[in-house]
């Protein structure tokens, strides 16, 4: 699927002054490509992901999926078109089990091999399928379940919002394996928001965001070296650190 973002502006409704989080963002995400969006905190990465899923409505601009304008479609309608979003901080649900959540995601019952997505994220389906998605799960377990939920949906375009945040080292190497597998195995578009070099290395293309604009977008081979050497144009604060807006 071809997803085009055209001149996206976004300012949160609750602010009185016009603080634009996204400023005239345009880009095209192609089929069968693995994109990694990176850049300093507060640069607009998560906001862009939520605009794609429909959680936020752009103040202006258009979102085009395979030539159709989906700017005004709801979250559910976009989900049905094959767009998926893995939360950076997934919510918990009292009384709903991991198996039930996976069943909701797949829109069919998760039994036997249907729960294998849990195995892919390093969780034993036998131990987890009947556990409630409540506060008894650790942050890392919750993140892995979130990723399993997205894997089970077979989306055409999936945006993972900092999947590595809160995941331990062992699971992290497993996580990079998963992204490699998704990328190789299926004809889908994967977008991962990440700060991790190992995930950046998996990308076909890297999108660098800062201060609400796409600073650079291009082939990994070209951009990665530049980013790693710190040769980007990030503004530095008085301590010489990359400036954070948060």
């Amino acid at each position, binding site marked *: 699927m071809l997803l085009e973002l055209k001149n996206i502006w976004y300012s949160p409704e609750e602010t009185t002054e016009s603080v634009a989080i996204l400023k005239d963002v345009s880009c095209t995400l192609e089929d069968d490509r693995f994109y990694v969006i990176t850049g300093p905190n507060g640069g607009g990465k998560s906001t862009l992901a939520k605009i794609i899923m429909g959680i936020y409505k752009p103040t202006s601009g258009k979102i085009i999926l395979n030539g159709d304008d989906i700017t005004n479609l*709801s*979250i*559910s309608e976009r989900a049905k078109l094959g767009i998926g979003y893995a939360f950076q901080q997934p*919510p918990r649900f009292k*009384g*709903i089990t991991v198996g039930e959540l996976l069943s*909701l995601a797949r829109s069919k019952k998760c039994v036997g091999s249907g729960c294998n997505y849990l195995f892919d994220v390093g969780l034993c389906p036998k131990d987890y399928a009947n556990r409630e998605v409540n506060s008894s799960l650790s942050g890392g377990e919750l993140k892995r379940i979130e990723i399993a939920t997205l894997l089970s*949906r077979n989306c055409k375009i999936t945006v993972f919002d900092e999947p590595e945040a809160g995941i331990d080292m062992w699971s992290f190497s497993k996580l990079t394996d998963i992204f490699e597998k998704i990328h190789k195995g299926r004809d889908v578009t994967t977008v991962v928001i990440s700060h991790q070099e190992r995930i950046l290395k998996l990308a076909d293309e890297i999108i660098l965001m800062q201060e609400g604009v796409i600073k650079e977008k291009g082939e990994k081979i070209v951009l990665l070296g530049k980013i790693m050497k710190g040769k980007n144009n990030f503004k530095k604060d008085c301590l010489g650190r990359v400036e954070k807006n948060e």
Partner: protein
Amino acid sequence: MNNLLDDNLIAQVADLHGIPQGAYNIRKNGVGIGRRSTANIEIKQKLDKPGIDIIVKPGTRGESVHIPVIITAEGLEDMVYNTFYIGENSDVLIVAGCGIHNDGNKKSQHDGIHDFIVGKGARVRYVEKHYGEGEGTGERILNPQTLLELQEGARVELEMVQIRGVDSTKRYTKAQVGKNAYLKITEKILTHDQQSAESEMDMELKGEDASIQIISRSIARGKSKQIFYPRLSGLTKCRGHVQCDAIIMDNAMVRAIPEITAYHADAQLIHEAAIGKIAGEQIVKLMTLGLSEKEAEETILKGFLK
């Protein structure tokens, strides 16, 4: 069973479809309409007041007792006293519950007082469902009282569910928990429109190493009102945990007042209470899986009361 209406009420409150296995007593509009005792479980009419005695022989294992009550007449006020004598080392399931179908304009009310004497080492699972339906303006009122005595090493689990359609309920539960005995109470209530529900509890941890766990989950919709007042006291070395968790919606009101009192330095008592609306991100999460907003809300509520 008499007719379709009765069958539906009984299915709602007792998960029964047809005549139950094991011992049973079915009460309709204030009179018994069917009863069966078994070799180990005797059900007999009380002589001094309306109600029955249920006597489970010591050592009875894996048997069940169903005692549903249904009310289909308007203007009926039914008061019943049931006493359960659970013999030592037995292990039984008791399914109670009351369904009211009131199409009339006068109130229908059922007040059930259930007294349990649970012998040493006995295990009981008690399930009680309350349900109301009908087109009339007559109120459907249920005021259950559950009084329990747990002797040494007894384990009792109570599941009390008010599904919907009950206009007013005042629930009172009292327990005395003996040495090494364990009591778990799970209470689930959904109220809507103008309904009101009150649940009051007096729990005494009397014997050494007695423990109690109370889990109350409720959803208040419309203009309904709910009050929870669980009181827990620890008289000796014991453990107790009360958890009241409510989802509030529309213009409802929920009041939770958990109270814990320790009379002993080794009494470990905890209470937690939380009231809040459905978190917006929960709905968003389910919508990203393809559910509509309404479906997402229903899924969250269903899970919460499961």
